[in-house]
């Protein structure tokens, strides 16, 4: 046989449970626009029944927990794609800057090469003409300047990317520190019997941010998470974060270290991966090609120049300052070694009116003097390589953006707050609350009846 008090308690549990459920709705509505927030769902369970004699009575409802709805697999996919996107974003940005150096303008290398050889052909029409000789020197100067400018642009870009390495490492360290701290808080909350709740949402959001910066592997470990780079370098383990540092290497650029280990070449994704790829692979490759072109041209021209005779009948001397052995830095240091126009060796036999050596110098423009190609063919190859790299990276970036967008849509479908849903829930909980309150009122009336049952009316 039940008692009124028991009924009261049961109705009360209803009030409390509905009110608690409404908390979840309230929190969802408040956080409808919070990035990374996963909607909360109250878990209502029937309380254990009691058996008295042959009757079983229910004891109401318990709000077991408030669960955050999230899909860990989706989140993991989003983190992966965020890393790819971060890497492609910084790569595309760097390469787009690089390709402006190789776009066709009046001062570009291709034009300078053409003008140089044109001036030599013109000289061949009248090899003793000092103004035509000066024309060759001027064209050679412009050619050297064009190479210098291009080399400087690439070097400057490398420096900027280098600065970004340091900045990005700083941001990474900040994030890993915050994640470690959250790990501690989540651990505490769960040990106390609760769930991580919105703390886990915050941590997921931070891991997403970290993913855009560097490649991250997330390994659930017991109650907590371990984060490492894709190559296995530890970033966060439980409450401890492992800071990355930078050290200057022999080229004067920043290498990324974890403790005393150089991990620079192991970082392949995220913004840091993209920056390192641009700084350590793409741009050096371009610098290399530029140097090959400059050195090839300078050496070939010098070879013809020194085989001939100048206007004074003396053996020719180098037109361009000899490029460094091995070619590295040839473009940055290219310069014209002659200022006196009479020193151009147009003649093959010392006669001032002979133009055979000038003809030989002109013929270089169509000879395979740069790595098996003519100078302008080689330069057009560089233009193609740069354009192709940008074009490919941009296409991959678009694909990655689309993929990420779809994944985000899916996550939103699972974890996003739908105001319609929350409104409907709110109505539901509110009505149940009102009903429980009515029940309590009825029980109260019944108690009054009981108490006043034996009152004598006089």
């Amino acid at each position, binding site marked *: 046989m039940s008692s009124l008090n028991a009924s009261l308690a049961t109705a009360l549990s209803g009030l409390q449970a509905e009110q608690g459920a409404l908390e979840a709705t309230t929190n969802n509505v408040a956080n409808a626009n919070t990035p990374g927030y996963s909607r909360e769902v109250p878990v209502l369970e029937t309380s254990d029944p009691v058996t008295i004699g042959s009757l079983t009575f229910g004891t109401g409802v318990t709000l077991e927990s408030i669960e955050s709805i999230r899909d860990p697999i989706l989140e993991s996919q989003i983190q992966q794609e965020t890393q790819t996107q971060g890497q492609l974003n910084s790569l595309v940005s760097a390469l*787009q800057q690089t*390709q*402006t150096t*190789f*776009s*066709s303008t009046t001062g570009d290398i*291709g*034009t300078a*090469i*053409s*003008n140089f050889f*044109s001036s030599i*052909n*013109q000289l*061949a*029409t*009248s*090899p*003793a*003409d000092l103004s035509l000789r000066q024309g060759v020197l001027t064209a050679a100067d412009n050619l050297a300047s064009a190479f210098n400018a291009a080399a400087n642009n690439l070097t400057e870009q490398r420096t900027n990317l280098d600065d970004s390495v340091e900045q990005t490492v700083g941001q990474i360290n900040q994030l890993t520190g915050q994640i470690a701290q959250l790990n501690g808080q989540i651990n505490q909350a769960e040990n106390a019997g609760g769930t991580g709740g919105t703390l886990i949402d915050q941590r997921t959001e931070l891991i997403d941010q970290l993913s855009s910066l560097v490649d991250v592997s997330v390994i659930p470990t017991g109650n907590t998470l371990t984060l490492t780079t894709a190559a296995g370098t530890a970033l966060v383990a439980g409450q401890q974060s492992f800071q990355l540092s930078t050290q200057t290497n022999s080229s004067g650029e920043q290498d990324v270290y974890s403790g005393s280990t150089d991990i620079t070449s192991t970082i392949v994704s995220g913004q840091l991966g993209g920056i390192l790829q641009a700084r350590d692979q793409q741009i050096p490759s371009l610098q290399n090609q530029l140097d090959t072109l400059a050195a090839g041209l300078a050496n070939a021209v010098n070879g013809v120049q020194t085989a001939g005779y100048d206007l004074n009948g003396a053996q020719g001397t180098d037109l361009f300052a000899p490029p460094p052995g091995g070619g590295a830095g040839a473009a940055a240091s290219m310069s014209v070694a002659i200022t006196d126009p009479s020193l151009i060796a147009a*003649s093959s*036999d010392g*006669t*001032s*009116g*002979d*133009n*055979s050596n000038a*003809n030989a110098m*002109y*013929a270089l*423009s169509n000879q395979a003097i740069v790595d098996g190609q003519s100078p*302008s063919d080689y330069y*057009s*190859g560089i*233009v*193609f390589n*740069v*354009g*192709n790299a*940008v*074009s490919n990276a*941009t296409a991959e970036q678009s694909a990655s*953006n689309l993929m990420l*967008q779809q994944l*985000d*849509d*899916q996550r*939103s*479908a*699972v974890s*996003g*707050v*739908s*105001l*319609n*849903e929350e*409104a*409907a829930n709110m*109505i539901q909980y509110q009505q149940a609350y009102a009903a429980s309150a009515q029940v309590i009122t009825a029980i109260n009336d019944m108690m009054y009846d009981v108490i006043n049952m034996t009152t004598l009316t006089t």
Partner: protein
Amino acid sequence: MRVNPNPLPDLLSALEQTQQQINTDEQQVASGQSVNVPSDNPANAAMLVQNANQTAETDQYLRSIGSIQGEMQNADSTLSSVVTVLQRAISLGTEGANGTNNVSDRQAIANELEGIQSQLVGLANLSYQGNYVFAGTATQTAPYVLDANSPSGVDYVGNSETNQIAVGDNLNVQTNLPGSELFSNSGNDVFQAIQDLITSLQSGTNISGAVGEVSSAYNYINTQRVFYGNAIDQLNTQQTYLNSETTQLAQQQTNLGGTNLPQAITNLESSETADQATLEVISQTQQNNLFSYLGR
């Protein structure tokens, strides 16, 4: 099945894309170029580099041809004058061979011929834009100097070298005839012939033989002129060819990297329309939800 309750990020992303497309189309219309940076079309960008190089080469060949044509035309007209002068010498010589002349008559003719010799030296020392044209490759010094001790009365101090110049990808043309071949070729030395005529007039012997020598020198010069005639023709032909090359290269450049303006403007208009439509969709997506209907 739950649907994504927040479509706004997707719409904004679509807006960004339409904006990007507008930017690209605007740039193409404004610059007239469809390839503004290599990544717009890497293969075409590379071909445009080679096109520019070939265009510059062709322009230079045309310039060089212009320079040489000038020199050759000068040389040719000078040879025409030489021929005229030699005709005068021949008629003088023929006159001198007439037996009715006496010593002083012949001396008078000889004197005129001395003047003709000087004239020939002047013509042979033709200078064009700072270069002696008939000196071989020793172009900075006058090739013929008067020398009383020389049998022909002059010395040739030039050389017998010739120059060539590239006026096409596989076309080199010889640009000069040295005086050693033209005027002082052994067996056809024009100065020797005139000198011999002068001597024979002064001595009164073998005048007709000397006139014959001048005649064959005259014939020889006429044959040599063919070189200049042919060279000028060849240059003219090459010039015509290069001009049509220039047109073709310009056409190729437009094909590779130019904007088809009507098409680009149409693209721009449709991009702007798409952008407008996206904006309207976004503004119409009012976030109507159940809360607004609960009357609270």
